[in-house]
């Protein structure tokens, strides 16, 4: 039904947007789990931070660029965009700021792990917990499309 009213040219950007978002949320699940179960275990914190760098960052770029692509095709990037699109852009852009902060904090923190200091990496990963919560709300908004 939806496919019949969606032009073919919209499907690739939509696919890339959803795929990027799914991988991003998967990466955030890893970082969140690392933050919550590591209890100072530097090895698991390092896995969490490396996931932030190698999974979350590229997935975010794909998700955000594809979002802009599909929004421009559907002409949803103007000031009169529906609420659910606004929620998506707001959480994506705020999420990018949080992701950058987490990457910088974690980058410094990973160097300090050798000395047994886990605070900065843990702080970095706890930022990703906030991001995951925000993106769960966003996924709900993308699906339910509140007015």
């Amino acid at each position, binding site marked *: 039904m939806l496919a019949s009213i969606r032009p073919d040219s919209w499907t690739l950007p939509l*696919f890339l947007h959803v795929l990027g978002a799914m991988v991003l949320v998967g990466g955030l699940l890893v970082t969140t789990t690392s933050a919550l179960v590591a209890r100072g*275990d530097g*090895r698991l914190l390092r896995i969490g931070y490396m996931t932030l760098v190698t999974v979350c960052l590229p997935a975010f770029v794909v998700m955000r660029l594809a979002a802009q692509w599909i929004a421009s095709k559907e002409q949803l990037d103007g000031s009169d965009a529906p609420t659910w699109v606004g929620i998506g852009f707001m959480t994506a852009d705020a999420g990018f700021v949080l992701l950058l902060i987490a990457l910088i904090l974690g980058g410094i923190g990973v160097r300090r792990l050798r000395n047994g200091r886990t605070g900065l990496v843990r702080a970095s990963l706890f930022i990703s917990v906030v991001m995951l919560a925000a993106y769960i709300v966003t996924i*709900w908004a993308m699906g339910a499309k509140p007015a």
Partner: protein
Amino acid sequence: MSLNDWLLALHLLSGFALTAAIVLFWVAIVAIRRTDRPEQVVAAARLLPVGSVVVIVGSLGVVIFGIWLAIALDGVEVWNGWVIAAIILWAVGTETGRRSDPEFAPCVNRAKELVAAGQTEPDARLAELARTQKGLLLHTIATVAILLILVDMIWKPGA
């Protein structure tokens, strides 16, 4: 918001949970395969219980809410080709994913035994168990099946 809006949102959230768990398992598999140190394997394995819960919630939710949605929506039927294809791919993905889990269990168990015995040095047998080709193949098939479901959901061939 209508019931169908909620069903779509829950279907989508379940799909995200399923793929998030697959990403989590990939991270754990890569971390386990890259090391021969017991403590490193045990650390990566601490991700797995969360992944197991999320994958169950996601895989059940995606098929339950998906079929419910197909019944509830006008113009979509459970016997549409793309819906049947998605259900078959879901079955392939969940079964191969379920079978990949026990392939990595011997590696995790050995790592736990070594750590409990106080051995932290690299272990050749552990490295061999970590590099199980069958486990990797099964998880790859599960991932491809879930990726094809996403392609099917977006392109809806034949709809």
